[in-house]
């Protein structure tokens, strides 16, 4: 039977690898965008506007012979890759990507530190230590910051863009539901942080009971 110590040791190693991969990818993205800023390439693919409802104004329908079922393509949800021609485009994307990469790196770094702390705490049979409480608290705060930023971006998108039309394809902005997960994560981390704080206080009291 696999012990909890083995599980946390494995998770800690996975988080270490993920952090290293994220670091390489993050730095790579930034370098790529810096090169784009220097070379002043006007066309740059971007799908940073979140989810859109894609309506295809196509006459006719797509059909399948499987079980004699006909498939009608009405609309779909997706993140379209937009090609924009603007002098400000590279700078805006650079700023946006820099922000996203920073947030993702902070998030992953905090996760890695949390799993490392949990791993060493479980190894020493002392789970309730103040460091773990603080790490859960930081993760909760970062999650809520990500949620607020995503919410702001989604609201700006809904407010500023009515629809984008390319020939017979219309893109209608929709609210990015995925961002709500960060709010739940933040609340969850706050609750876990509170539980660990109570545990830490009880442990301290137990240690000072003669």
């Amino acid at each position, binding site marked *: 039977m696999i012990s909890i110590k083995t599980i946390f040791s494995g998770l800690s190693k996975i988080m270490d690898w993920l952090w290293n991969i994220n670091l390489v990818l993050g730095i790579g993205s930034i370098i790529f965008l810096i090169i784009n800023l220097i070379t002043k390439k006007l066309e740059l693919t971007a799908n940073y506007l979140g989810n859109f409802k894609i309506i295809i104004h196509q006459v006719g329908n797509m059909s399948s012979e499987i079980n004699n079922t006909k498939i009608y393509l009405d609309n779909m949800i997706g993140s379209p890759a937009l090609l924009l021609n603007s002098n400000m485009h590279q700078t805006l994307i650079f700023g946006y990507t820099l922000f996203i990469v920073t947030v993702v790196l902070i998030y992953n770094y905090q996760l890695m530190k949390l799993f490392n702390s949990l791993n060493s705490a479980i190894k020493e049979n002392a789970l309730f230590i103040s460091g773990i409480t603080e790490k859960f608290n930081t993760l909760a705060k970062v999650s809520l910051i990500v949620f607020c930023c995503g919410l702001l971006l989604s609201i700006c998108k809904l407010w500023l863009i009515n629809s984008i039309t390319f020939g017979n394809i219309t893109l209608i902005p929709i609210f990015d539901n995925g961002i709500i997960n960060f709010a739940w994560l933040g609340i969850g981390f706050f609750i876990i942080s509170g539980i660990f704080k109570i545990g830490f206080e009880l442990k*301290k*009291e137990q240690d*000072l*009971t*003669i």
Partner: protein
Amino acid sequence: MAIIVNLDVMLAIRKMSLTELSERVGITMANLSVLKSGKAKAIRFTTLEAICRELNCKPGDILDYKGD
């Protein structure tokens, strides 16, 4: 905290050192120091009983209450 630990006073009255009490009661020096300095959050009845037995005193001689 409003609870005052007078262990040092009782030790002085009984002319007993903290080390000797520690050996007699079976509590580590570190824990007795925590109790003596007033940093302890709680005291077990078994510990209190052992200290009272060795110092030949009552719990009230060791613990006192001083309100604001």
